[in-house]
């Protein structure tokens, strides 16, 4: 049932170590980034690094490379997740009663709330 029993352990091992080094480097990058560069875009930058790591894991550790059908299914589900994100976040950000909603106008609530806790 297995198609490739003729693989060479020593040859393949090198690939795993290469990916490991790459992932370790990216992890280091994760730690220095907030203090080194793109400081005001930490959120996005961190997720970009995460996405890069995820891509390496998917392609090399999970052997997604060369998997046609499975690759498409993964891509489809990721597109779907992204679509859900876009729509829901766009909805909350374009809510026309943002200014009067007590969920979205956090500072307003905060003031009241701190006031209350000081009294106690």
């Amino acid at each position, binding site marked *: 049932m297995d198609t490739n029993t003729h693989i060479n352990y020593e040859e393949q091992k090198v690939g795993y170590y290469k990916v490991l080094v790459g992932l370790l480097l990216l992890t280091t990058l994760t730690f220095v980034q907030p203090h080194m560069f793109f400081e005001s875009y930490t959120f996005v930058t961190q997720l970009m690094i995460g996405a890069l790591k995820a891509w390496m894991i998917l392609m090399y550790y999970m052997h997604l490379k060369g998997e046609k059908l499975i690759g498409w299914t993964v891509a*489809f589900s990721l597109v779907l997740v992204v679509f*859900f994100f876009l729509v*829901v976040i766009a*909805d909350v950000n*374009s*809510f026309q009663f943002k200014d009067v909603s007590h969920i979205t106008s*956090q500072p307003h*609530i905060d003031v009241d709330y701190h006031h209350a806790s000081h009294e106690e």
Partner: protein
Amino acid sequence: MSNSSNSGKSYLEAGETHYAIGHPKSVFMQWMLTIDHKRIGLMYAAVIFVFFFVAVLVALSIRIELFAPGAQLFDGDSYNQAFTLHGVIMIFLFIIPGVPAVFGNIIMPLMIGAKDVSFPRLNWFTFWLYIFGALIALSSLWTGNGFADTGWTFYAPYSLNTNTNVITTLVAAFVLGMASILTGLNFLVTIHRLRAPGMDFFKMPLFVWGIYATAWIQLLATPVVGITLILALLEKMFGIGIFDPSKGGDPVLFEHLFWIYSHPAVYLMILPAFGIMSEIIPVFSRREVFGYRTIALSSASIAGIGYLVWGHHLFTSGMSDLAKTVFSFLTFFVAIPTGVKFYDWVATMYKGKIILTTPMLWALGTMITFVIGGLTGVTIAMIGADIHLQDTYYTVAHFHYAMLGGVVFLLFAGLHYWFPVMFGKMYDEKKAKIAFYLNFVGFNVLWFPMFIAGYQGMPRRYFDYLPEFQIYHQISFFGALIFISGLAYMFYVLIQGMKHGKPSGTNPWHATTLEWHLPSSPPPLENHSKVPYVDFRPYEYHHGEPVVKFDYKTMKRID
């Protein structure tokens, strides 16, 4: 497990099955431990129809309560619990497993020439997971502070604050969701891997296409609602405020996540049902189906578009105007592939040799009821109309026309159509037709008045109403009586057929797809005697006769 153990005996006979564990002697345990897809499908059918009748009786009690204004049978609280019970059973225990679990299991592997599904043991496990979930759901009837009173949608923040037993119901819905996911997963792998040699995707019967599209929804949409229910559970236990506006959470987010699953879920219900329609129409028109590819691809595109339209449930729930507009626009697109299917079916019948058997009657009846259900859906996809009609009886009538008059009617059609495959016997056609007419008339009398009542402002989920709506409720009540007697009579006829029916032979309908080319009826344990090579389209008729013929010993074509 031997390679080909076809002894020629029916799969229903004692001992004629493979087991998940061991080799039980008792016939009962043989059923409990079976991994045969046909037996599992039959067990699903038995269980879901029991639940169906329970929910029907709950619905009848609701109708009795609504016979006159004021409280008769229920007070407000138990009325809320009654419609929640009705909804939870109908949605989670009956219609979501519905067609895929029953006919997806029994018929789909036969149609593609497989010996079983890809993971038969997982299939067995899934069935028991479903039973486990059902038991949890039912247990909440007697534990805690009574059954949930939130409606089947569990809308936050009410579901977070009510002290009825919502927690158990949420857990049950999660477990049932898992069962649904695993069913879909199993079918997807089966359809990808186990098709008979030569059968490419565009040689598959259309029912298999329906199951395939459904399975993708089961797989990718269900986890979203699963995790939403888990978050609601944690919210109830730890109060971190995820969906509670008084704690900074946003209930609209719950509704988003809930409908991200639950709207595709209605396509999950209807797509395999459409598949049944696509089987029945060509067979009883004795014509090759018109526009095979467009029907197949419309199933896929309904599943795809179905993911993009959930927001039309939120028009009155505090969604942004931008999102409302976008969702209203996208929703209209669902009508296009659905329309394509309908025109294809009608075109198939055109100049065909139409034979009005019971399955065909059910299919034709559904064409009427589903068109009403579908088009009224388009009217409430318009934001303006929806503001008026949301949460009225108009909406109630709409989704009952679509779900009951669409999915369940087609489930019944399939039940009559594949009855000979499942049991090797034939029911009494004359009586079965009477049952259909009773159901069809009762159904319309029951639900059509609700369109009018809803349009005039009768709100949904109220146990009391203004006197001016009484006439509609009373007509509905009489419709319900006709409908329920029709249902009871239909099942009586089918059970009589199961017990005393005449042997049907393997292909009583002169159909063409592979489930009608089995060596015996009911089929043996491992289905076809040999796996055929498929080099033909699924519905080939010539002058009203099936083109493809097999030698059933070798499964070679002899036409």
